């Protein structure tokens, strides 16, 4: 007998199964999911295609195994960190064997990067007694210059007639980076094409340890709230080996370029709250807030909301709005003043460490076929608006003629489906 998924889930809930295990996905058997993201930045910048596949097996015992494959193909141009200049600028490629030239007044973009990532993950959830669930996860991800492996475990316990769920998790990740041309010394000068270079480390690594504690509370038959606190500690090589900074004179024009250098540790902490409510006996409204800060001086706030309008028995439209604001890292510099690179130990002009606001606006349409198979499409626009930061006072007048925080806009198209069970 083919049950309506939500009725089926409700029936499971009546049997006293926990909220998570009562989800429609928990029907015994195999479920297969496929989804693809097409990401496209304006002005020929980053283009990405990211298909994902997932197979999940649920057993009557409540145990479930989920295995995922992600592919990620990237191309296009990315800011190399240098500031615009009044004359054309020539940069050496990371290998040291080539160069590219940027027109006067333009934001320097490195268009030589292409990358394909393959990632695998597997997670096993096992009930421990009637109230606990242990989930263990393994993952690995590989690019031509990057290898990441990791493992995690989360234990969740239900209380209060399963109206309260508390969970604790830990995740450890080990990354090995083999940058093209080796890892440059922080704040060392970018050599010209073909120029002999100082020896570089061919392989560097970093370790990331995450811990989190989460609390989910059912507030009423139609609402619930989740609160999560998390800590993330990174150690090792945290710089981007391909990012540069301009060293400029008082006129704001570049004298030379140096490679960026970031601290070799980072401690992030985040608080996340999510509230969900079923409204008009038909729709689902979700709003979340995240606060994050780290010892690099970054503080960010994120507000995210969706409203799922179930306008038909098998159709929904879901508008999405996200607002994000971050402050710049302490060592973020739009450029360095002449000689400054010898006086400081850390600096980065990576726009991702600068101060900016970002807005995402999107709309999703979802449909469930008569056979009970759901699919969906989502179209979103993402815009980053930079705020001025990290401009050296000695060169502020000279740099004022350039756009140091160009706007970033991207279009994201996502589609997915699920079948099985």
């Amino acid at each position: 007998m083919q049950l309506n998924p939500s009725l089926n889930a409700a029936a499971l809930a009546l049997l006293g199964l926990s909220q998570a295990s009562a989800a429609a996905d928990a029907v015994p058997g195999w479920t297969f999911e496929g989804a693809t993201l097409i990401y496209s930045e304006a002005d020929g910048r980053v283009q990405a295609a990211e298909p994902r596949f997932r197979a999940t097996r649920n057993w009557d015992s409540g145990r479930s195994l989920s295995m995922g494959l992600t592919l990620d193909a990237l191309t296009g141009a990315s800011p190399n960190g240098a500031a615009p200049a009044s004359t054309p600028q020539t940069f050496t490629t990371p290998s040291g064997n080539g160069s590219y030239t940027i027109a006067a007044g333009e934001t320097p973009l490195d268009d030589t990067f292409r990358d394909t990532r393959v990632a695998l993950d597997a997670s096993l959830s096992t009930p421990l007694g009637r109230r606990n669930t242990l989930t263990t996860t393994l993952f690995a991800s590989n690019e031509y210059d990057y290898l990441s492996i990791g493992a995690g475990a989360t234990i969740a316990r239900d209380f209060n007639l399963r109206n309260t769920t508390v969970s604790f998790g830990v995740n450890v990740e080990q990354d090995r980076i083999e940058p093209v041309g080796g890892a440059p010394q922080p704040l060392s000068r970018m050599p010209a094409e073909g120029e002999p270079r100082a020896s570089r480390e061919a392989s560097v690594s970093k370790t990331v340890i995450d811990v989190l504690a989460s609390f989910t509370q059912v507030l009423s038959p139609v609402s619930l709230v989740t609160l999560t606190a998390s800590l993330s500690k990174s150690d090792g090589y945290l710089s981007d080996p391909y990012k540069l900074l301009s060293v400029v004179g008082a006129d704001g024009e570049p004298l030379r370029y140096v490679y960026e250098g970031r601290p070799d540790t980072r401690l992030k902490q985040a608080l996340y709250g999510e509230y969900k409510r079923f409204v008009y006996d038909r729709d689902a409204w979700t709003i979340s807030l995240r606060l994050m800060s780290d010892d690099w001086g970054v503080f960010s706030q994120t507000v995210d909301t969706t409203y799922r309008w179930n306008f038909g028995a098998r159709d929904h439209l879901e508008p999405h709005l996200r607002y994000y604001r971050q402050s710049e890292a302490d060592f973020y510099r739009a450029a360095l003043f002449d000689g400054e690179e010898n006086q400081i130990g850390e600096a980065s002009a990576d726009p991702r460490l600068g101060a900016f606001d970002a807005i995402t606006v999107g709309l999703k349409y979802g449909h469930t076929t008569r056979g009970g198979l759901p699919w969906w499409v989502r179209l979103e626009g993402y815009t980053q608006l930079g705020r001025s930061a990290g401009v050296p006072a000695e060169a502020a007048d000279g740099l004022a003629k350039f756009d140091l925080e160009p706007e970033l806009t991207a279009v994201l198209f996502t589609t997915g489906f699920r079948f099985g069970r």
Partner: protein
Amino acid sequence: MNPLRLTAMTLALALVSGCVTVQPWQRGTLAREDMQPGGEPALAAFDDHTYFSKEASSGGRGFGGGGCGCN
């Protein structure tokens, strides 16, 4: 009844009702797929990866992760 006592009782009632226990047979709505915390998992994964690659923040609702050279 004096206003202070009325306020205290109203507050206490609000607190108690905020912690009301929802019985298993009242959970049909909460068991709906669109009422699961975190939303559609594939979308959440795409969003986390995109924002991790473009912003200085990551994680919050789950592990910060990364596993790529994109940041």
